[in-house]
């Protein structure tokens, strides 16, 4: 019996050691660009425009346009907030009509079918947040080919399948914020696990890869335990977080929630397990969903940009494209109350740096 236990322990240790060298589950294999450990801003390499072009788009400069917005899924707080931002922008502009429609689950096939139908129906522009960057590309190219303008936000597609992409925050910036927050809460030798949507969801995969790169260079003694998939499903996220708590017990110092669904679910799991203060939760989420946990002190800080601003910017960018105010080669674009936004990385528009909210400011936001 004793021998068995030793064998199991050794095997586990060996497997653990073998895994440590591997990339974290749920990260992608694209090159990473971790920021400096202090606050030195990252360098942005200049890059030529790499987006796509419409063929035979009607000139609707200054005229009323009809837009369709297809987020990853409908019925969750995050995309309700982007929809609200789009509504605000449309109201300000006065010559934009925007409707949101999409699948009720973050399913690539459903999303493609939705876009396909709207392309057939005929709209002036498509706004999208991709469930898969490559799978969505053919149908977006089809839209471009029919003279429909295509602008992405939140989750990118292949660059040449859309004209512009509104980037809510650069991946390495988010990764740095998340890891720094976690290190501040669980210390430089803490162990943590990650709850993500699926291992191939583009944003999450990028963030996780960047988080690994940043952690290895700036907090090398922290230890990653596991990444688990939870779609963007409340119950599944809760169960997965709960499993992590039960599985690792005291070894688990912190949980990262990589989606706006996973973070509150992880916070709820920690609260129900009575592990507040022992297991930290750091992640991306909307203030409304996190307010109870931030106020109870179970969660110290949440990292996010404003999804309302994100939706708002997407509509302004679309309007600028239609009006000819944003063309390949431009370096900035006017976006209403957000002022001038920078063009980065060829054909992306950067919303700004990520925002960390905590007990002191969580009540200033309502989305």
């Amino acid at each position, binding site marked *: 019996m004793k021998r068995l236990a030793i064998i199991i322990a050794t095997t586990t240790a060996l497997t653990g050691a073998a895994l440590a060298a591997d990339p974290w*589950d749920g990260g992608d294999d694209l090159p990473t660009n971790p920021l400096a450990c202090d606050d030195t801003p990252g360098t942005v390499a200049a890059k030529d425009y790499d987006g796509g072009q419409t063929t035979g788009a009607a000139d609707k400069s200054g005229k009323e346009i009809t837009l369709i917005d297809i987020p990853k899924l409908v019925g969750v707080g995050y995309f309700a907030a982007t929809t609200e931002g789009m509504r605000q922008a449309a109201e300000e502009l006065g010559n934009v009509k925007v409707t949101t429609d999409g699948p009720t689950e973050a399913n690539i096939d459903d999303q493609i079918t*939705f876009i396909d*139908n709207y392309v*057939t129906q005929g709209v002036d522009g498509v706004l999208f947040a991709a469930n898969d960057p490559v*799978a969505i590309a*053919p149908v977006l190219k089809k839209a471009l080919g029919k003279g429909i303008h295509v602008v992405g936000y939140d989750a990118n597609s292949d660059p040449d399948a859309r004209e512009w992409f509104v980037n809510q925050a650069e991946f390495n910036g988010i990764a740095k914020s998340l890891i720094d927050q976690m290190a501040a809460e669980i210390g430089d030798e803490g162990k943590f696990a990650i709850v993500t949507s699926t*291992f*191939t969801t583009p944003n999450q995969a990028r963030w996780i890869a960047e988080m690994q790169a940043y952690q290895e260079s700036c907090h090398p003694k922290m230890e990653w335990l596991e990444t688990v998939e939870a779609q963007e499903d409340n119950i599944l996220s809760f169960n997965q977080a709960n499993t992590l708590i039960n599985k690792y017990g005291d070894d688990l110092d912190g949980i990262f929630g990589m989606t706006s669904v996973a973070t509150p679910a992880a916070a709820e799991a920690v609260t129900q397990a009575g592990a507040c203060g022992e297991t930290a939760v750091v992640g991306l989420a909307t203030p409304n969903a996190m307010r109870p946990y931030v106020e109870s002190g179970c969660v110290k800080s949440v990292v996010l940009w404003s999804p309302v601003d994100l939706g708002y910017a997407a509509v302004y960018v679309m309007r600028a494209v239609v009006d000819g105010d944003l063309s390949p080669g431009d370096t900035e674009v006017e976006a209403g109350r957000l002022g001038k936004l920078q063009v980065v990385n060829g054909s992306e528009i950067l919303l700004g740096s990520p925002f960390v909210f905590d007990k002191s400011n969580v009540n200033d936001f309502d989305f």
Partner: protein
Amino acid sequence: MSVEARATRAPFAYHHELLLLIVLVLVVGFLAVGTDKFLTVDNMLNQGRLMTEVALVALPMTFIIITGGIDLSVGSIMGLAAIMLGVAWKNFGLPLELAIVFSVAVGAVAGFFNGLLIIRVRVPPLIMTLATLALYRGLAEGISQARSVRGYPEWFFVLGQGEVFGVPTQLWILLVAIIIFWIVLAKTTFGRSLYAIGYNEEAARFSGIPVDRIKLIIYSLSGTMAGLAGYIFVSRVSTTRSDMGTGLELDAIAAVVLGGTSIFGGVGTIAGTVIGFTLIQLLKNGLALSGVKGDATIVVIGTVLILSILVSNFLQRRRGAGG
């Protein structure tokens, strides 16, 4: 007994398909009035492209349900086959052509395994395929390491995104498949054996029908078609992911049941299934084009399913009382 059963069954089946056909025509007419984007050659062909995967899986599903069985694992088999295509090509270094054959073969083996356990261990198909629904999806995720495979060469997309004689490539495959499945079910001993098994499995056994072999064949067939659907899907969306085909089984079963195949076995036709998946696809598309939002569309589909079952039950009972 068997003569009598056939006599009451045939006219009923005829009625149900006729009824469905009328519903289909009404729906198409109604939607065409609602929006001028719906009834165009372009849109119809495009819808054909989008429904091919479900349709290919619904055909063998009809066979299985006629025997009183069910196959819940088709969506997972599709995901597994898709992943194996990518992995065989990228990681094993097989030529892409061979990788395609390999992936369809993986589907066939997965289906064969379902069939084998169903006949050998006598696990009810519902339980067995529910288990492999989880098993195959888990394999797909494990093997792929949850990384997607991309970067296929241009020729690979001809099947999923290209056209032959102005018609989406995969529709030709579907058309051939429909004809073959129709002939097999309606015109061959094999097809009649399926009905016999569904009606009374014990009786079929005693009549010398090789029940086990037939079951093994149809579950393998189901896996093969799911593998083929996986290949077509990868070609259509140009990437491989382990979550492909999630929920496909429900779409396929809904189409088969809407088409008048009895979930208790013994009744069903390929024509019904074809009308079934066409009706569901056109309803989804037409409602979307008329400006109905996604969530409302699902409600309509559910309602149509319930109504069709109510009506067919009603007709069946009336026939029973009259005869």
